[in-house]
């Protein structure tokens, strides 16, 4: 088939204070008409920059194409004037971006934003452009498009905003759609829907797609052909089956090995670290057995936030964030909580150490009732449970050296004498496999994975019995994610730690957990041993959630028929609302399913 885009020996340079830096190095590939080409690689590999250069939208003065050609439809884009390029952008080449929350202008209605691009490129008057914008919103499955067109972006959910972005991108029937990590910021259920939508629209309109992602599972879902990039260069190119079944380059193999695949743990009773390519074989990949001694018992935990309103700021309603949740975590084992954003899983974690005050319930840590402690005893108790947060960029103080940040909990509790502090921190750095020379560095000098190791070192400083990891690896690249997960599992074996692992990534959860709890709208809908939950999900929500997870295998693609999600109902109820307690049925040994109506 004919080539639509052909990139020839493209070189892109970044101008920095330290001099010019090659971001893209001699890159060549082609995109054929109506095919989907996935460009895959980790952050900083130059994949987004390549996409921007195809749009001729490289940030001026920072990035520059130094040599090479980009041919689009046999036209050399470098030869076109700015006005000619403006006529192509949004019309023949269009693009959707990663962050649906910020990619739309907050001050214009979505109807205006969709019709704007139509009016720019098609000679239509205001009314006709608006009508066709409404049609487009319908095509991307926004409910009641004629009314929602008058909504502002802040009135739409993340998934809906990404649909609007797709409507804008496809408004002028472009020849190629560039999708730059369009689902990375979305929940797995919404991701599945958006991917299915892009596939469906692609088939209807015959547009080519250049799909940029770091997620091999998404590649398997979408791609006809794949280009693998590793710092600025193409290391491998091939059809999706060639890449997945017979990868040639070491980096592709490593990338595939680092992706936890849903279902690969089915035959194993206990979690075990991942086998990473290039790591020394001395690393024992032994299963993590744990103990059967309970560490943390949570009974009937309820957390509700007041919604204030009116002139007197009285409580007018309540957000039912966590509703009658009970579970137990054993010493040396991991319990994972999974669910979509807004399901209350993070609130559970925060309630346990009373960062938010639970409304009622019982939290028992090693025989101590956490919820009845006075502030002084609570402070002592907190040293037993530490947290690691999602965003390694904002959870460290940018202006303090790392030594101080890791030492801070020890200084706070005064448990370690000053003379041995240096040695103790050094040990912690060894523990998380960071060189001791990093102690004098600042957070901005570290990569995301290294920062997350610092966060883990800080959590370990007080020798806690348990760590709450709230989406601790979600913001990391796959290979880094695998390393951090392995580190956490290694610490679990060595120190006998328990983990409460909060995540939306089912494949990661399958890899690390002994037990799994699935949450929906504040309730725990299903809980039990990991193999039992994954092999035999009983609750309809768990079943649908598992169906939505893309599998890193091009032969197991999902079609839109597999998906039927309802939008999450509101957890806000008026003061008189008194939900019924959660009742469970034991369907297998230790495997419980909610029988109360949870709203799904």
């Amino acid at each position, binding site marked *: 088939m004919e080539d639509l885009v052909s990139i020839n020996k493209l070189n892109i340079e970044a101008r920095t204070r330290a001099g010019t830096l090659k971001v893209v190095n001699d890159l060549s590939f082609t995109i054929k008409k109506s095919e989907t080409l996935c460009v895959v690689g980790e952050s900083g590999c130059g994949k987004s920059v390549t996409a921007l250069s195809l*749009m001729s*939208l490289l940030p001026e003065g920072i990035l520059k194409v130094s040599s090479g050609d980009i041919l689009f439809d046999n036209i050399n884009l470098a030869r076109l004037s*700015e*006005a000619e*390029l*403006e*006529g*192509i*952008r*949004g*019309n023949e080449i*269009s*693009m959707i*971006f990663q*962050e649906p929350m*910020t*990619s*739309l*202008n*907050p*001050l*214009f209605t979505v109807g205006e934003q969709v019709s*704007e*691009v139509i009016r*720019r*490129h098609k000679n239509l008057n205001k009314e006709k452009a608006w009508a066709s914008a409404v049609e487009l919103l319908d095509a991307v499955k926004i409910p009641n498009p004629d009314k929602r067109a008058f909504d*502002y972006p*802040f009135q739409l959910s993340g998934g809906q905003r990404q649909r609007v*972005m797709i409507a*804008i991108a496809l408004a002028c029937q472009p020849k190629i759609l560039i999708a730059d990590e369009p689902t990375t910021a979305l929940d797995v259920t919404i991701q599945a829907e958006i991917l299915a939508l892009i596939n469906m629209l692609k088939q209807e309109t015959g547009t080519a797609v250049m799909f940029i992602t770091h997620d091999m599972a998404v590649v398997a879902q979408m791609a006809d052909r794949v280009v693998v990039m590793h710092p600025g260069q193409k290391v491998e190119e091939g059809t999706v089956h060639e890449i997945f079944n017979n990868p040639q380059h070491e980096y592709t193999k490593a990338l595939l090995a680092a992706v936890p695949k849903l279902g690969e743990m089915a035959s194993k009773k206990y979690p075990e670290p991942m086998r990473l390519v290039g790591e020394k074989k001395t690393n024992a990949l032994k299963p993590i057995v744990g103990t059967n001694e309970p560490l943390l018992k949570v009974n009937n935990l309820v957390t509700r936030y007041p919604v204030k309103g009116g002139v007197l700021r009285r409580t007018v309603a309540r957000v039912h964030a966590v509703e009658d949740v009970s579970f137990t975590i054993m010493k040396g084992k991991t319990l994972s909580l999974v669910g979509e954003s807004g399901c209350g899983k993070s609130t559970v974690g925060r309630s346990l150490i009373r960062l938010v005050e639970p409304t009622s319930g019982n939290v028992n840590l090693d025989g101590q009732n956490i919820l009845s402690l006075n502030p002084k005893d609570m402070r002592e108790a907190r040293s037993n449970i530490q947290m690691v947060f999602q965003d390694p960029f904002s959870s460290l103080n940018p202006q303090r050296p790392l030594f101080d940040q890791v030492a801070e909990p020890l200084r706070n509790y005064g448990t370690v004498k000053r003379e041995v502090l240096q040695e103790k921190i050094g040990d912690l750095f060894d523990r998380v496999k960071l060189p001791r020379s990093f102690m004098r560095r600042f957070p901005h000098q570290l990569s995301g994975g290294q920062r997350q190791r610092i966060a883990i070192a800080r959590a370990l400083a007080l020798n806690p019995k348990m760590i709450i990891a709230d989406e601790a690896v979600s913001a990391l690249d796959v290979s880094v994610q695998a390393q951090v997960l392995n580190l956490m599992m290694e610490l679990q074996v060595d120190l006998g730690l328990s983990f409460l692992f909060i995540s939306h990534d089912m494949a990661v959860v399958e890899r690390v957990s002994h037990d799994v709890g699935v949450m929906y709208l504040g309730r725990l809908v299903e809980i039990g041993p990991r193999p039992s939950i994954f092999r035999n999900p009983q609750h309809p929500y768990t079943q649908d959630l598992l169906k939505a997870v893309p599998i890193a295998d091009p032969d197991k693609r999902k079609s839109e028929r597999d998906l039927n999600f309802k939008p999450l109902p509101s957890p806000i109820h008026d003061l008189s609302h008194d939900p019924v307690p959660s009742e469970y049925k034991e369907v297998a040994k230790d495997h419980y399913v909610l029988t109360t109506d949870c709203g799904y």
Partner: protein
Amino acid sequence: MLLVLLVVVVLNFFMLHLAPGDIADTIAQTMGGADEQDMAELRKQYGLDQPFFIQLLNYVVKVALLDFGHSHFYNLPVFDLIMERFPATLLLVFSAQILSIFVGILLGVYAAQNPNGLSSLFVNMFSLFGYAAPVFWTGILLLIAFSLHVPIFPVSGMRDITIESSNFFVHFFDVLRHLFLPMITLASIFFAYYSRLCRASMLEVLGADFVRTAKAKGLSKKDVLLKHALKNSLSPVITFAGLSFSAVVSGAILVETVYSWPGLGTLAFNSIISRDTPVLLGILIFSTLMVTVGNLLTDLTLKALDPRIKI
């Protein structure tokens, strides 16, 4: 808003009481002295023999009925005196404010397009000059320049009384001509703030994702800049405009004095010199009113600009 006004009125009353002496003393002084009996008579006449709270209540009720007392210097009711001057100040304050916002935004947008270039440097220097130079100095400088060297604009007063025409537009343009210099002088302090604020917020917005989206739609540079980016970068400028209203009003007093602009400022200046307290307090209440109305306007503008803001 009404609460703010009430608080100011009450504070006014306290200030009146804190100052040594009262109206009776002042009047007696101007009359060249009075004996105890006359003083008591005067105090009774002005209600000063009443208990404190009754006096406070009386004062608040009087202000609510737009009775600010009597100016013994001009021998006119304070309210009439203020109403005669108020429109001139209102005109000066609003025109200067609008001019400085408009020019500030223009300069800010211009500078943001090329933040490290020569144009940006020029705008920065210009605005630095604006807020470093004291307003009376700028005023006098312009005054000298326009009275001695290029006498194209009148440098004093608000109207030319020699014009004998019944045509509205002739008078209108006469006032505009007189307004020009005081307006520029007053606005010069604020160009700086607005242009710097607008430049900074424009620079931030230009890096935002939705600006990239707008470019990816194929919109022209002008549309990206003036439609998508500008609207999003206005809110800090407008917020600051609301906050600076009081500064503009107080700046107006200096400017009016320099240019003999017949507004509240010159009135305030004269009242200070002649210790005409009722007039001063009346002006204070009117300034408060102007500032609160200015703030209300700001809030309404912000609301109109950003659908996410709820009042």
